[in-house]
């Protein structure tokens, strides 16, 4: 099925009037005033309604989708969460994959994070294929693709003439599309349209390959553990340990639990994002820490992404979005540091 972009945005704009149970919010990436190094505008997920320049195309927004499900700082309640559904559109494959990991971490047989679960159940996810490549994008290095294959309710693949090819991924997605069809015309797709989508996707993959051709990921990640400490020390030399990389990572979910009770009868727990890059992260009472040095903590993050999360969740903790490299104040390139640790583990480091 093929729909017009204009119809889709009109549909979003009028959904509150036309839908019996309208969504509480529709969130779409919007261009911000800030620019990347190559003068492209950052995109940020924003609720529709204002006069923002919304778009479903391009590459991933600057902030991860995780922030909309796993709130950065939140008082935890033991009551049940309630509220109407919401729609998030323009979601990219790297963020969707990260949600799969978070699902395993935050909704499992040992533990359920009540607010994360609530937002997961109450959100309709509309994915869209990447039509551009960000400077740090590298999903193809970590078994990813610049388009979603699962985990969405609806997927949109842009075609010529401002139209989208629609794929439905769930009953929720089907219901929304059925509602769309009550007011808007759709066209049937043909082999030709699918060919066009395949060609567009292939083109983006080639751009990604070109951009990442100096990085070799033919080795297994097990060798990361064997990498000499001075490799990590060199890579982390400029690291200031601010934790920006983990806070902006779509799969990092480490939390800190604070007690903010003011009254003993009403215990109030507040959870906020924590970062394994911060000095006090693993320190125990009495002052001992398993990772006292910056290079220990720096290395821990790479091992967590490629080995520990793989072991915990049967998937890599890196989805290749490249946000950590974008966010780094010291401009440490995640791909570069991974590459060095994978391949230089036994070579002595040349001093500069």
């Amino acid at each position, binding site marked *: 099925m093929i729909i017009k972009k204009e119809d889709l945005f009109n549909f979003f704009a009028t959904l509150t009037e036309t839908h019996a149970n309208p969504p509480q919010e529709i969130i779409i990436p919007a261009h911000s005033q800030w620019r990347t190094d190559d003068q492209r505008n950052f995109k940020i997920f924003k609720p529709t309604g204002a006069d923002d320049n919304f778009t479903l195309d391009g590459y991933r927004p600057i902030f991860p989708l995780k922030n909309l499900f796993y709130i950065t700082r939140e008082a*935890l*309640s*033991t009551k049940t969460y309630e509220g109407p559904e919401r729609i998030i559109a323009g979601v990219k494959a790297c963020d969707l994959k990260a949600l799969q990991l978070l699902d395993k*971490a*935050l909704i499992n047989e*040992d*533990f*359920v*994070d*009540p607010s994360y679960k609530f937002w997961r159940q109450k959100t309709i996810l509309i994915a869209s294929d990447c039509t551009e490549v960000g400077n740090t994008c590298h999903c193809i290095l970590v078994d990813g693709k610049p388009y979603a294959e699962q985990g969405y309710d609806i997927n949109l693949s842009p075609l010529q003439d401002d139209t989208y090819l629609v794929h439905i991924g769930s009953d929720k997605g089907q219901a929304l599309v059925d509602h769309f069809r009550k007011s808007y015309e759709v066209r049937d797709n043909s082999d030709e349209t699918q060919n066009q989508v395949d060609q567009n996707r292939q083109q983006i993959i080639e751009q990604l390959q070109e951009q990442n051709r100096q990085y070799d990921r033919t080795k297994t990640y097990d060798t990361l553990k064997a990498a000499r400490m001075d490799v990590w020390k060199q890579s982390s030399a400029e690291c200031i340990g601010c934790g920006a990389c983990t806070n902006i990572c779509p799969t990092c*979910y*480490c*939390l*800190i*639990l*604070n*007690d*903010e*009770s*003011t*009254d*003993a*009868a009403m*215990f109030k*727990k507040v959870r906020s994002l*924590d970062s*394994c890059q911060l000095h006090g*992260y*693993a*320190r*125990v*009472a*009495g002052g*001992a*820490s*398993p*990772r*006292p040095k910056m290079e220990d903590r720096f290395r821990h993050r790479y*091992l*967590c992404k490629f*080995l*520990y999360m793989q*072991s*915990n969740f049967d998937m890599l903790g890196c989805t290749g979005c490249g946000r950590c490299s974008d966010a780094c104040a010291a401009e440490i390139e995640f791909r570069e540091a991974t590459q060095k640790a994978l391949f230089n583990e036994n070579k002595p480091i040349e001093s500069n």
Partner: protein
Amino acid sequence: MQNMYEVIPATIYETVKESPLIKTLRLQPEKPVPFKTGQFIELTLPGIGEAPFTPSSSHFIADNMDVTIMKTGYVTEHIHGAKAGDTVGLRGPFGSHYPLHQFEGKDLLILGGGCGLAPLRSLFLTLLDESDKYNSITFLAGAKTPKDCIYKDEATQWRKHDNVQFIRSVDEIPPGQEWDEDVCLVTKLLDKVDIEPTDNPAIVCGPPVMMKFGTLDLLKCGYKEHNIYLSMEKKMYCGCGECRHCVMGPYFACKDGPVFTYDQIKNEEAIWD
């Protein structure tokens, strides 16, 4: 499923000063908090914070709970200031426990030092409640000085059991303190023990350096890696494998531990730090 963030209020009905730095709180929770010995709870002081502790009472007692706490940081300093009648909060229990069924019919060796005796007291009292299930129980307990020795007055009672041996030592006797039992590192007490190590379990808890050398000495004695049970202390924040602070490679100290066998974790990094 239990909501992991649910806090059960508990009233302190007694506090016992065990040593200059260690106190035992006796708690009466609003509703029972049944646990298995070795598991831990998160204890909250309202408005101050939360920290993990292993109960030090028998797991056969469910409606109240002893928690032995060393003053070593911000939260524990405030906990030491708490008085009988104050309210604290409990979450849990969390984590793995000592596999008591595997200990049945065996000669048990328990090795502990300092505040590491807290979880071991829970284990020991739980074992004593069914002491005929075990062939023998040997408890080696260490402290820095006689003043630091905790559960002092309970030893006489413990030594009354037929198949129980309770030996304790201090590292040194500073001037002005008295002690008529052993003076040596607790690991040295192993020389006094006559247990066939092949199939028997050894349970270790104490300060990291004691755990490390205790484990190495046990291995030297002939204990098997899978028979050495360690109670690991890491920063357990949430208690349920969410917050990742306590990860040891692929393991979570809070969820897969705190009780590990040595062969499970021997290849992980910085286990003794």
